């Protein structure tokens, strides 16, 4: 049977000649995202290289935990475990943060939400919906290097280990500087908040959702996993929010610990 030649006139797209006809402030959101992420990256980089002021009994900065180098102060290490020894580059000790940050960094870099955020804000692909992107070619996440984004779930697993460690850090913060239990300081509260939001961020992760139930075909045959999936789905709805809150809290926690460790402010005890 022949196909029609007269049906739809062969046309091209409407040529409007402009990047977008949007009249609202579409550029605002990517701009804010850009500035906020950039600020974090600059701060975190500086702090990761600073290699100082990250520990003040009983508080440890989340950027340096677990501290796995020999140079780490005693209370900062995880049960005295220092598998990395000390590394030097051109006479300078390599900051212990650099050994571990790759994991949280990888977790967030491959996070479905952050991907959206930086693809839009940094790579402008696209800057906003119905606004043309500047690139001539686009292959998305089909090839190297971006195909690596598919490893996100492994970073998620690692993230869980970090969450356990940072939770442990928060628990041991229920001590005073002399190591006695049962005390709560502003630092304790901050570390607890930090751990809480990291959990919320991780548990609301899309890979988490898939792992605990999303990949099932029949929820009705797996009531427990369905229950978990439902709860994770509720959290997942706010994944973006948790991503931002936890990011800001991590930076804030680090800053607080730094100021305390540097002696700029005291770590006030509530009791």
């Amino acid at each position: 049977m022949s196909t029609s030649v007269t049906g739809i006139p062969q046309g091209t797209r409407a040529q409007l000649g402009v990047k977008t006809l949007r009249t609202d402030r579409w550029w605002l959101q990517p701009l804010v995202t850009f500035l906020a992420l950039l600020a974090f990256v600059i701060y975190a980089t500086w702090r990761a290289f600073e290699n100082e002021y990250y520990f003040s009994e009983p508080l440890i900065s989340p950027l340096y935990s677990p501290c796995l180098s020999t140079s780490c102060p005693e209370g900062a290490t995880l049960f005295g475990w220092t598998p990395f020894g000390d590394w030097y580059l051109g006479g300078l000790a390599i900051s212990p943060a650099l050994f571990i940050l790759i994991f949280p960094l990888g977790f967030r870099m491959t996070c479905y939400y952050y991907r959206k955020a930086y693809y839009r804000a940094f790579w402008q692909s696209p800057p906003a919906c119905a606004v043309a992107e500047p690139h001539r070619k686009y292959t998305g996440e089909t090839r190297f290097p971006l195909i690596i984004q598919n490893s996100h779930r492994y970073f998620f697993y690692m993230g869980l280990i970090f969450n356990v460690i940072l939770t442990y850090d928060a628990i041991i913060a229920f001590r005073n500087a002399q190591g006695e239990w049962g005390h709560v300081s502003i630092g304790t509260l901050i570390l607890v908040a930090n751990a809480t939001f990291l959990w919320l961020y991780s548990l609301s992760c899309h890979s988490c959702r898939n792992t605990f139930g999303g990949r099932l075909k029949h929820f009705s045959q797996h009531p427990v996993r369905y229950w978990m999936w439902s709860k994770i789905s509720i959290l997942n709805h706010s994944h973006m929010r948790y991503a931002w809150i936890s990011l800001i809290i991590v930076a804030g926690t680090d800053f607080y610990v730094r100021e305390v460790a540097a002696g700029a402010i005291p770590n006030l005890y509530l009791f």
Partner: protein
Amino acid sequence: MSYMAKFRLWRGDNGSGELTDYDVEVNEGEVVLDVLHRIQATQANDLAIRWNCKAGKCGSCSAEVNGRPRLMCLTRMNTFEEDEVVTVTPLRTFPVIRDLVTDVSFNYEKAREVPAFSPPEGLEPGDYRMQQVDVQRSQEFRKCIECFLCQNTCHAIRDHEENEKAFAGPRVLMRVAELDMHPLDTKDRREIAQDELGLGYCNITKCCTEVCPEHIQITDNALIPMKERVVDKKYDPITWLGSKIRTRSSSK
């Protein structure tokens, strides 16, 4: 409570055309489609618009209003200032037939590439049993009214016509997810999704979700879960191994 509004409509065909100005009366409670109908009935009898239900149910009246992909029948005039110029242009991603009407056959062709629902062999009509919790995920996707706004807005094809071969677009990939989550479907479409329909082109930037008039969580509930399922099958050695062991033991 009527007033005269300024409308600017794209008029033309086959890619050549221009924005044309109209002054037109607008009454209380009207939507953009009403105003275009008034222009059509009084000033431009041959103005091409596509519409059917006028109630956001059929997905015919997709266009771009002040640059934003929308259903014209659901775009209320009271969302604009009275002195604001309202610019209406055709969907940018599809070839123009005339004025505000585009050739959306791309979407139908792509839909044909998704292997159809395949129920278990020997299951007779009338004997289907499914639980509500098992159908509700796919039901969300079946709310789709095929307005193709998501297809139009997805930058992977909107800004890159050359990807039209490799990438089927969010609506079509959502259909894959729908079937993959259908409790009685027996086919595995994960490889097709990635290798033939181009799921990897999606960089989850969520514009499809942003424009969907049915408020379907396309990215969060269809595309990302589908990406995860593809990882299960293609990229994750552990789940891959797990599925091998499981099929081996269940085939015994």
